[in-house]
């Protein structure tokens, strides 16, 4: 990657790492949440639904500040986690956490829609054939919602790549540590002569986003074709 300076490359690599981690960790949680919201009725369901969607509606800066207040090193939660060696504040892990939380509602929405589209009668049929609930999920529900899971994951990945407001508020903009792609673009635009670096990173952003989108479309089509 000779056409990217080491500084620029660092931002790209960090962003990819942050987005991959955010997506991978959010995936099972998102699937579980989507399933619960789609299929179960439980007290406080509307509250959970609202909580999941909050990052979508709140100003990202507010989400970032709330994260700082919750996971900062001098907060009870932050101190407790620090004892276990888990530190979020001003680390790349914090950037991943912020990106994951911001991407979560998008992921859950896409997955929930596809789970609701699965006919519960098929799951009943699987149960009468001897499949326990876990097996029904693994062998019937999951394969049928795979396109939605893929779409939700790509959406989340793209969102995580581009997350700016919550990240910069929560973990600041430290090159090599928390300076993700959007933060780097922002930083380059603040210094004279940084436009060309910013432009190169913009191109990288567009390529990564398009690539992810095309890959997911292609995968979803393959899954769809297998089923019809």
């Amino acid at each position, binding site marked *: 990657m000779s056409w990217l300076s080491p500084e620029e490359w660092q931002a790209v690599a960090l962003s990819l790492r942050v987005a991959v981690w955010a997506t991978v960790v959010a995936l099972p949680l998102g699937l579980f949440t989507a399933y619960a919201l789609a299929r179960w009725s439980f007290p406080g369901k509307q509250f959970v639904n609202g909580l999941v969607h909050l990052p979508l509606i709140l100003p990202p800066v507010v989400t970032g500040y709330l994260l700082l207040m919750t996971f900062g090193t001098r907060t009870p939660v932050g101190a407790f986690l620090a004892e276990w060696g888990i530190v979020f504040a001003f680390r790349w892990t914090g950037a991943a956490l912020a990106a994951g939380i911001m991407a979560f509602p998008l992921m859950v929405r896409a997955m929930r829609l596809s789970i609701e589209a699965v006919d519960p*009668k098929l799951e009943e049929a699987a149960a*009468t*054939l*001897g499949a*326990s609930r876990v097996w*029904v999920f693994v062998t019937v529900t999951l394969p049928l919602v795979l396109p939605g899971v893929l779409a939700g994951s790509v959406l989340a990945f793209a969102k995580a790549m581009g997350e700016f407001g919550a990240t910069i508020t929560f973990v600041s903009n430290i090159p090599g540590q928390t300076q993700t792609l959007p933060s780097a673009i922002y930083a380059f635009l603040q210094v004279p002569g940084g436009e060309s670096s910013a432009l190169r990173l913009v191109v990288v952003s567009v390529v990564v986003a398009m690539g992810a989108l095309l890959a997911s479309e292609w995968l979803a089509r393959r899954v769809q074709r297998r*089923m*019809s």
Partner: protein
Amino acid sequence: MTLSVRLRHQLPGFALDVDFEAPPGLTVLFGRSGSGKTTIINAVAGLMRPDTGRIAVDGRVLCDEGVWLPPHRRRLGYVFQEARLFPHLTVRQNLLYGRFFARRAGARLDDVVEMLGIGALLDRRPGALSGGERQRVAIGRALLAAPEMILADEPLAALDEARKAEILPYFERLRDEAKIPILYVSHSPVEVARLATTVVVLQDGRVARQGRAAEVLSDPSVTPAGVRGAGAMLEARVVRHHDDGLTELDAGGVPLFLPRVGQQAGEVLRVRVAASEVILSREAPQGLSALNILPGTVEAIRSGDGPGALVSLRTPAGRILARVTRRSADRLGLREGVTAYAVVKSVAIAPQDVGGA
């Protein structure tokens, strides 16, 4: 293996309160739509939890006070009205789905595939199958899960007449060859006459009558499908096929002539005789085109609210139901104990009215 069901459940509009047994063979839960049939079969399958009740297969309790076996541990094969095949799996994978969980020996895949004639479909996906093919695969899938009992909820209702005629024989084979008890929900008198060994008649959420198919179907006081759907069921043995396209049968010593049937001489058939196709005569009819004349004794007459009456006649062939007008019944002087002749046109017996016994 006997299924015993006793349950109460409040449904919107009416209360279900039933108590019946399904002995080996094929038991039809017979009643019009909304009589609670599907609720009962879903309670047996574990897809619905009744308010109170006890359901057991022989000694194995599926549901009782404080006992609730989840559907996947009930070992019942369920054939739904819509086939409910898994769209992401091939026919072969659908068929083998239940066997993966059963962990016990059941029917062999090859035997089931051959019995249902679905060998050519194995590598296809359900989306590429016709309605009748789908339902055959669904039957195979239930059977291969090695169930202790098969449940079927109006499995033919979503099919057109031709597809119904295609699937009915498979249930006959299931009943006769697989030796697995079957609980079958239906509102179709034809299906009941063709398939049932035992009938449980449901009316307004209660069991109105239960017993052997021939007895229940020829009882004029029980008409769950309405008087228009009434019809008795006779058993008859094929004597021979005649050159003019008719098949001669022997029903308790009385010859019956039907349009040619597929069964061989010596085989025993079930013949459904729709009550509305039967003419009654007090004297042995002369110079009549109808070929089937069964002498008998009037056993019961049930007058309806309208102009009709349902007459049951005991004949050597079995009991026959005839639907005549009250006016005719009065004019003929029909009452219990008098002699009468049931007259049935051969062509009034449709191919779907005839099946293996």
